[in-house]
């Protein structure tokens, strides 16, 4: 039983990331009709916003420590971060320690800007082009973005830790009546799940309970009619692109303590998230979220030794098997609108 609960937790955690990326993907498809293969790159850029902020906080002044030597035998240059010089050792160290959560504040405007530039500068020229063209141009853009990140940050994964307060594991099993140390789960992964739930809830509330959201939903249902009412739906859709970019970006920021960021992390998540969108239903927001968690949990269960011993390699193909099954039996996806992907 403890193994099953652990895999459910793992699945919810993986599913949180899939759902956050898929939410943005399906939002863009539902509003602009664009299949955005650069969306994974936005997740990666978000992660590197956290890396950048950590590096900014670690910018240091150097002074020579004559008691120590470097690898060449020269006196060692000891680095003291500027933030520690300016705000004192304690505040400076706390800023560095909390750089990941703080990076969210930086990531939101950065990602809105990136989304705006991407949409106005490139993607809007492909609205009326076939999906194949959109996929090619956004896939190309994703490769350009990841190569740029590699140029500036290198190819190696960069460790970006959670704050010390969240670095350990929680005895989750005790809460459920298990013996101590039976179900240990990292604090940060629980934080990530809560964070994802808040962001997803926020996006839904924004679309459901604001006038802006109502217009966007109307535009998703019938763009032409909304336009005929004199509403500038294009402007609102551009803002939605920025919002989708920001969601992917903050998802990337918060994921850095779980997965050390590297330049191809966006591509790794993109393919899975795209499958999530197809399974959930292209353009369906609840579908993307439900499919994200469902596939995350399925993938985790497929990784269990008991399952792998029955069907070797199932952990690597389970998501795609489900996608094939869904496309064969219900092409519109679990919660997709009738007609989408069915004509």
């Amino acid at each position, binding site marked *: 039983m*403890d*193994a099953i609960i*652990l*895999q459910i937790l*793992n699945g919810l*955690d*993986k599913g949180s990331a899939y759902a956050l990326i898929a939410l943005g993907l399906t939002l863009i498809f539902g509003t602009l009709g664009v299949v955005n293969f650069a969306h994974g790159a936005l997740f990666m850029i978000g992660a590197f916003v956290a890396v950048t902020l950590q590096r900014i906080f670690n910018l240091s002044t150097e002074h020579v420590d004559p008691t*120590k030597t*470097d*690898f*060449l035998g020269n006196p*060692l240059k000891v680095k003291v971060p500027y933030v520690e010089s300016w705000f004192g050792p304690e505040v400076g160290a706390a800023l560095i320690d909390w750089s990941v959560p703080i990076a969210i504040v930086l990531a939101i405007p950065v990602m809105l800007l990136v989304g705006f530039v991407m949409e106005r500068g490139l993607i809007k020229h492909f609205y009326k082009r076939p999906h194949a063209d959109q996929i090619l141009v956004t896939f190309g853009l994703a490769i350009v973005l990841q190569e740029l990140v*590699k140029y500036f940050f*290198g*190819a*190696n*994964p*960069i*460790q970006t*830790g959670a704050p010390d307060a969240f*670095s*350990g*594991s929680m005895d989750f099993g005790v809460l459920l009546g298990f013996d101590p*140390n*039976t179900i*240990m*789960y*990292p604090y*940060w*992964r629980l934080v990530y799940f809560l964070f994802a739930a808040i962001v997803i809830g926020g996006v839904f509330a924004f679309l459901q309970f604001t006038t802006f959201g109502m217009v966007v939903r109307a535009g998703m249902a019938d763009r032409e009619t909304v336009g005929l009412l004199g509403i500038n739906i294009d402007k609102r859709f551009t803002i939605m692109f920025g919002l989708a970019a920001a969601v992917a970006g903050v998802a990337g920021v918060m994921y850095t*303590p*779980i*997965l*050390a960021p*590297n330049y*191809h*992390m966006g591509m*790794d998540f993109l393919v899975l998230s795209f499958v999530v969108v197809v399974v959930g239903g292209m353009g369906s927001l609840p579908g993307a979220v439900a499919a994200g968690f469902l596939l995350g949990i399925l*993938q*985790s269960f497929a*990784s*269990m*030794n008991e399952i*792998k011993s029955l069907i070797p390699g199932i*952990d*690597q193909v389970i998501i795609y098997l489900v996608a094939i099954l869904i496309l064969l039996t219900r092409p519109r996806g679990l919660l997709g609108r009738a007609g989408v992907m069915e004509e």
Partner: protein
Amino acid sequence: MSKSNFTRRGLLKTGAVTGAGLAMPTIFTSGAAAFTNEPTGNTVTFGFNVPQTGPYADEGLDELRAQELAVEHINGMGDGGMLNTFSSKALDGTGILGKKADFVTGDTQTKSDAARASAKSMIEKDGVVMINGGSSSGVAVAVQGLCQEAGIIFMAGLTHSNDTTGKDRKANGFRHFFNAYMSGAALAPVLKEAYGTDRRAYHLTADYTWGWTQQESIQSATEALGWETVNNVLTPVGAGDFSSYITPVMNSGADVLILNHYGGDMINSLTQAVQFGLRDAQANGKNFEIVVPLYSELMAAGAGENIKGVYGSMNWNWQLSDAGTQAFVKSFGEKYGRPPSNSAHTCYVQTLLYADAVTRAGSFNPCAVAEALEGFEFDGLGNGPTLYRAEDHQCFKDVLVMKGAENPTTEYDTLEIVEQTAVEQVMYEPNHPMFGGDDATLGECNDGA
């Protein structure tokens, strides 16, 4: 009146023969030369085939730095580095057999097909006499096969699978780097000393050639100590999130987790294992321990504080105190502002060893060079006395057991040397079952003539 002999059929025949001739790779048509890419001018060209893009690009960059430095030293530039400490004095800093050394580079992308394509291009278009470098066993085996067919020498880079000089050994290929068997043999006594003989190990293993041989080797070495193997789970390469594979470890009855992962996979799996509290856990009345059989400096830097106290092994490390190591670290450090990695060291010494072998053989003919390298014993290139064994072209020297440093002072000393395991302890027979047994042979040397 002249009569033309051209006929449609004759023209087609001629065209077909000419076309076939043009289409045939030049490496198979070097009839004029005594051997493939025999150097004729004032220079001789090496091909440095390393990952310049992809996940191991940083490692490839370090290999390139070292190879460039080696060429400088061969040509008499710089301070000479390890040429000053190398026991063979055949190289005098005036190039090789009167020719200046030069190089071209290829990008393996850490993909076998891309690595073969770049190696082929360097052999056919740039006329290289040897290929050096790389950061993957899959790539090494693929490029080694190509060099064997083409008739040039292959000096493998960072390749740790037993297969490279085991079942896939080739007469034209040599490996300075150590292998998975040696890691297991070196680590076992240290693990016994640190954790005792009553342990239960759980393996997570990268699902490809290196992972399999690494796991087989360390399992064999630890079971010889009396350890029990609880489970071995194959994980996909580049899985990223290993949580689903790590959580079953906690209640499996194991008290040691062995991560047969390398590169980004190792960084992620180790970090996540620590996040799940494994390093602080207790099992079977003992502290839970994590072991990473193969370390590299770049991985250690990526894993950060998570490697503290974790044992692993390395081919070489810049912190060794022998004269050769110090000379190389000084040359490399002054030129690039950082100490060299162990893959950089391998590529550097292999370039020197190739040049030295050519000089001793008095020829660039790959079979003469191979003969000069076979059974060659030397010193002064780090790790103490070293042998290039004739039977399998594997290099034998001391192996380093490393541990994550508790209090590193810089980003470069995150690992510390625990023990320099004597070469005798990591030796094995050329027909060892893990290395292809009696069926494994080098085959015939091919000079491409």
